[in-house]
């Protein structure tokens, strides 16, 4: 069974704690963190006008350093009109289509990754703070159910590796506790920045499970559960992972 985050604080470890010194050094210093390339792109996009409304993110939200501080710690967050939680990427696209009258950005495309990395970085160092209330609870529970459900040809649940066997090795790599503390992050294996959903796809394909489409409700629910499970842990965006 899953322990409540509040009571398991000491036991919880970020993926950072499992990394080599060299990879940690990359994350620790902005001048060496390749993810900062995406952050820099994101800043340019934030200030650039787009869409039929010819409006930039900054025209409504002002300076992201102030207005976006802490925002990424609360996502996925419940959206009243969608009547379900939306991920940070979906929120950016909602803003684009409704306020900027622009076409939505492609999931895992460079622009959406850049913007979410830039917004995410404004919350770096802050504790993750997902709210569980009557709105989010059913979706969070659906995510928990996915996390604990055996699936795929290997018939494995997320929990079997990341709860029962964290700290051990899988093909030479440490099995982490699956706390999404630094997304979007620069992954050396990808040679680029990717979202949490891309990382989840990675695990699903590894267990030979049919992966959900990017932005699918199942993915957002799982993301919501994982972020809630990491409540109180420090956000590291843009993190670096091996």
């Amino acid at each position: 069974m899953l322990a409540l985050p509040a009571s398991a604080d000491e036991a919880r470890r970020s993926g950072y704690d499992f990394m080599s010194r060299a990879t940690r050094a990359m994350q620790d210093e902005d001048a060496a963190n390749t993810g900062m390339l995406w952050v820099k792109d994101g800043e340019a996009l934030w200030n650039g006008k787009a869409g039929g409304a010819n409006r930039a993110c900054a025209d409504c939200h002002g300076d992201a350093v102030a207005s976006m501080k802490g925002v990424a710690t609360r996502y996925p967050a419940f959206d009243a009109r969608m009547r379900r939680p939306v991920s940070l990427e979906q929120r950016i696209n909602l803003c684009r289509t409704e306020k900027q009258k622009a076409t939505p950005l492609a999931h895992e495309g460079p622009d959406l990754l850049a913007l979410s990395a830039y917004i995410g970085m404004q919350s770096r160092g802050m504790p993750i703070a997902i709210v569980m209330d009557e709105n989010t609870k059913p979706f969070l529970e659906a995510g928990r159910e996915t996390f604990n459900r055996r699936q795929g040809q290997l018939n494995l649940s997320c929990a079997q590796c990341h709860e029962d066997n964290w700290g051990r090795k899988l093909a030479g790599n440490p099995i982490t506790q699956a706390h999404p503390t630094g997304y979007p992050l620069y992954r050396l294996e990808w040679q680029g920045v990717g979202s949490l959903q891309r990382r989840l796809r990675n695990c699903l394909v590894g267990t030979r499970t049919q992966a959900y489409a990017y932005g699918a409700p199942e993915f957002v629910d799982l993301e919501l559960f994982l972020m809630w499970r990491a409540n109180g842990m420090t956000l590291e965006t843009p993190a670096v992972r091996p």
Partner: protein
Amino acid sequence: MARTLITFPANARRGEIIEVKAIVAHEMETGFRHTQLGEAIPRDIITHFTCGYNGVEVFSATFYPAIAANPFISFSTVATESGTLSFNWIGDNGFSVTETAAISVS
């Protein structure tokens, strides 16, 4: 878009050894891979990096197909006089990126 990250101290004392760090965005295709149909994917890498200090080359590097994407270069030089540091990456398919940044030496 923003495709480089360059870091070094903007102010330095004369004779001080300064550390310069530079990252450039590049996908790096080795030239050794093939498509599913067996066609070779042509090489597309950065082949050369130089750093000039007021026009004088202070550091250069040659890259080969094993170079990682978005390479990070770190080197040191001696702060001799105020001026500009220029950074130039050149590679396959006419790839060329040049950046300059000012340094003040007292």
